[in-house]
């Protein structure tokens, strides 16, 4: 949309609806310019048009107006919270994954199955994001794993601040695995870093194989794709090869595993992936503790060498 006059044509693209024409309008400061309506933004190609204002210049002292440099990321606040979470995970040897998908891809079933399989190997806790209800957290708690439900209300995604609060309540033990089940939505959660080690996108074969092309941001943000419900493939016309090709078009580094959470197929590979990540997080914590202990020893030695 043209943000000055509000004439509407923005990035929303409606197939088969071309509407190119140019448009001229006047700014509040009297300057006039035109732009093609099919331009996606009301762009000034990097120029600020201060020289077109009443003073024909923009110098301090000439007008009351001044320019304030900001240069801040719009998501800066979220990213700062995410960094805080990440630091906390590192200190405690916690391996955190952010599970993202559309609603109904089988995230919660996958989680329940994973928790069962991990029972003897790792401590697992879950943060459940949904707009409403605690149904999913209840399903997780039934497995014996601690879970916190975050209801986002009208919100379409979890943010790092919400996850930080959930962590305060979960009291995670050191060296544990945290699974964050994001709100079922293939769009918004892509942009919000929660401090996780990896985003894992789950796509079920009952959805279209072109989902990665339709929702590229999410597949681009993820490091691993779990193709779920593969036990249903014989009954569907889903083309696995094509789906993987589409996903890797969007993200050449994307790792793919084929699983069926309900019958357990392919789950060992996924569990091994989680355990490898957890081992790395544990090793990181041990290394940190070692460094701190060494530092304490050094300081104590320095202290001992001084006369009291």
């Amino acid at each position, binding site marked *: 949309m043209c943000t000055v006059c509000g004439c509407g044509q*923005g990035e929303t693209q409606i197939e088969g609806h071309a509407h190119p024409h140019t448009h001229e309008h006047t700014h509040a400061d009297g300057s006039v310019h035109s732009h093609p309506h099919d331009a996606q933004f009301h762009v000034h190609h990097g120029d600020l048009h*201060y020289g077109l204002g009443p003073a024909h210049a923009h110098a301090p002292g000439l007008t009351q*107006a*001044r*320019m*304030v440099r900001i240069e801040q990321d719009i998501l*800066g606040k979220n990213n700062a919270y995410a960094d805080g979470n990440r630091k906390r995970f590192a200190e405690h040897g916690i391996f955190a994954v952010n599970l993202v998908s559309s609603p109904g891809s089988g995230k919660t079933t996958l989680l329940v199955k994973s928790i069962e399989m991990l029972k003897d190997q790792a401590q697992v806790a879950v943060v459940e994001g949904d707009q409403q209800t605690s149904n999913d957290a209840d399903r997780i708690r039934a497995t014996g794993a601690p879970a916190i439900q975050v209801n986002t209300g009208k919100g379409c995604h979890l943010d790092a601040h919400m996850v930080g609060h959930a962590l305060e309540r979960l009291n995670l033990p050191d060296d544990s695995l945290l699974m964050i089940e994001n709100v079922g939505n293939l769009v918004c959660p892509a942009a919000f870093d929660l401090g996780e080690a990896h985003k894992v996108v789950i796509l079920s074969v009952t959805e279209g194989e072109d989902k990665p092309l339709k929702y590229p*941001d999410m597949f681009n943000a993820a490091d691993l794709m779990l193709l779920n419900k593969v036990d249903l493939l014989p009954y569907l016309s889903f083309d696995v090869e094509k789906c993987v090709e589409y996903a890797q078009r969007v993200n050449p580094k994307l790792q793919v595993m084929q699983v069926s959470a309900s019958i357990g197929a392919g789950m060992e590979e996924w569990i091994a992936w989680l355990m490898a990540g957890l081992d790395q997080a544990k090793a990181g914590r041990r290394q940190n503790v070692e460094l701190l202990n060494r530092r304490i020893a050094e300081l104590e030695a320095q202290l001992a060498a001084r006369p009291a």
Partner: protein
Amino acid sequence: MHEMSLAEGILQIVEDAAAQQGFQRVTEIRLEIGALSGVEVDALSFCLDMVLKDSVADGARIELEKTPGRGYCLGCGETVPVNALYEACPKCGSYQVQATGGTEMRVKDLLVE
């Protein structure tokens, strides 16, 4: 996506700057939005209209500067323009293109009184 959260983030940045630098009114906000950032500009303007109401930036003009998408092609080893994440490299046709630019969304500067 989530344009309301982004609009609120922008207001927060503006209000923090107003508190720090003591200006009373913002007449223009200049944003830099990357072509691959996933921001729906139409929705963002709509949300900003609502969010900025009765704030220091009520009625401020929003200038959007679009930064082009860029990517590194693993196929031909070159940095190439990218219009969408799923597009092939315009030089060699490979899909092994990693986005390297155009993903940012920033508040660049403000015109204040």
